[in-house]
């Protein structure tokens, strides 16, 4: 039977290479897969394109990657209060693509759902329409937003079963659930792993078809 449990942080991020596009779940600290973020820092890869809501807050988060200059570009909605990112942003050594948060999430969803894009009313008449095709439907203007996909998605779940079905904890679900649909390799850091059948089939948020690896971090 399918079993996607990996025993080490290193195995959870194996194959992540220079130049990869990496989605990282979380909104603030909730849903942030800290153990595997750290494992990627230990890989010491370069030139990553990161897709995430925030850009680290100075702790054991994306700040680790910025401190090690591993990131070439970040696509996010709110990179404020992110000291390490800011230093490199000011120095011009990292590229920023700033997106309205809902557009960020929906572009990821489109990537996971096999859509070629979607028409969004968000950003029309603002600087966020720059470089985007405008399409008028029924007399209303929309921006054509294109899908986002990644080589890796790193997200934080609460409980996984050995097949790879995942639940989340409270507001830590945030961007994790869509990111888990939109990457070639989806790695989920969880607090606990149970046998297949150990999760309520009605309450599974990310069915195992989306999940390639689950890793249970040591819980203090």
């Amino acid at each position: 039977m399918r079993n996607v449990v990996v025993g080490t942080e290193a195995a959870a991020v194996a194959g992540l290479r220079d130049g990869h596009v990496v989605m990282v779940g979380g909104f603030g600290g909730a849903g942030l897969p800290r153990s595997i973020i750290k494992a990627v820092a230990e890989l010491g890869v370069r030139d990553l394109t990161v897709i995430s809501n925030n850009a680290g807050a100075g702790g054991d988060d994306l700040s680790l990657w910025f401190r090690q200059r591993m990131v070439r570009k970040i696509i996010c909605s709110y990179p404020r209060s992110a000291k390490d990112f800011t230093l490199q942003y000011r120095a011009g050594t990292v590229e920023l693509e700033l997106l309205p948060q809902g557009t960020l999430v929906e572009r990821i969803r489109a990537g996971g759902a096999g859509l070629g894009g979607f028409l969004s009313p968000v950003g029309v008449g603002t600087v966020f329409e720059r470089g985007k095709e405008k399409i008028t439907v029924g007399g209303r203007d929309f921006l054509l937003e294109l899908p986002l996909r990644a080589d890796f998605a790193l997200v934080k779940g609460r409980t996984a079963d050995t097949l790879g079905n995942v639940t989340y904890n409270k507001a830590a679900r945030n961007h994790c659930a869509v990111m888990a649909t939109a990457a070639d390799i989806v790695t989920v850091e969880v607090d606990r792993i149970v046998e297949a059948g150990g999760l309520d089939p009605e309450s599974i948020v990310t069915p195992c078809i989306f999940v390639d690896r689950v890793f249970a971090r040591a819980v203090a």
Partner: protein
Amino acid sequence: MNPLNRQALARLVASQLPRDSFVNLGIGAPTQIADFVAPDAGVILHSENGILNMGPAPRAGEEDPDLINAGKSPVTLALGGAFFDSSLAFAMMRGGHIDVAVLGAFQVSRRGDLANWTTGKDDGEPPGVGGAIDLAVGAKAIWVMMDHVARDGAPRIVSDCTLPLTATNVVSRVFTSLAIIEVTEGGLLVSAMLEGAEFDHVQAATGAPLRLAERVGMITADGTLIGRS
């Protein structure tokens, strides 16, 4: 006559939220409105990070890092609350399911254009937009809550925004430290003023022409509105 303070302004806005409405309180000053919503008003708070029916801040020591609001402060879940992912959270916002979004702003134009996202131009920090645009475009009603003028005294209600826009033609009502101003087809209409404030004074602090509504309410110093429902 001193302008309303933040607390009084939050109390004022809270009192005007429709009964049983679904409301998103933007990060910053509007978050404080939650503290003044009457428990029996039935108002249900939405947070774009995936919470419906947000409760008040937890007691010290009971914070849960996985239960935070859009401003990343610890909150609780009220009875009958629900968790969901960001894609559904933004479907609620963009799809017109939120009755009222109360947002902070730097500027509002006489047509209801809104400038409220942080471009970073003034503090040298990177820009950040978050869910501000999604809310501004999608909620059924967009209310703004802000000081009537900027720290340097410059009007924040203007004929045309000079700051980068969040969205055009979306704000329907502005609660300021001096007045409540409705954005109508016919322009800006003052529907209530702070007790003791003169129309001429409010107009002088405003960068766009104002008109007085037929009935003008009075706002007391603690943020109570008298003379309008």
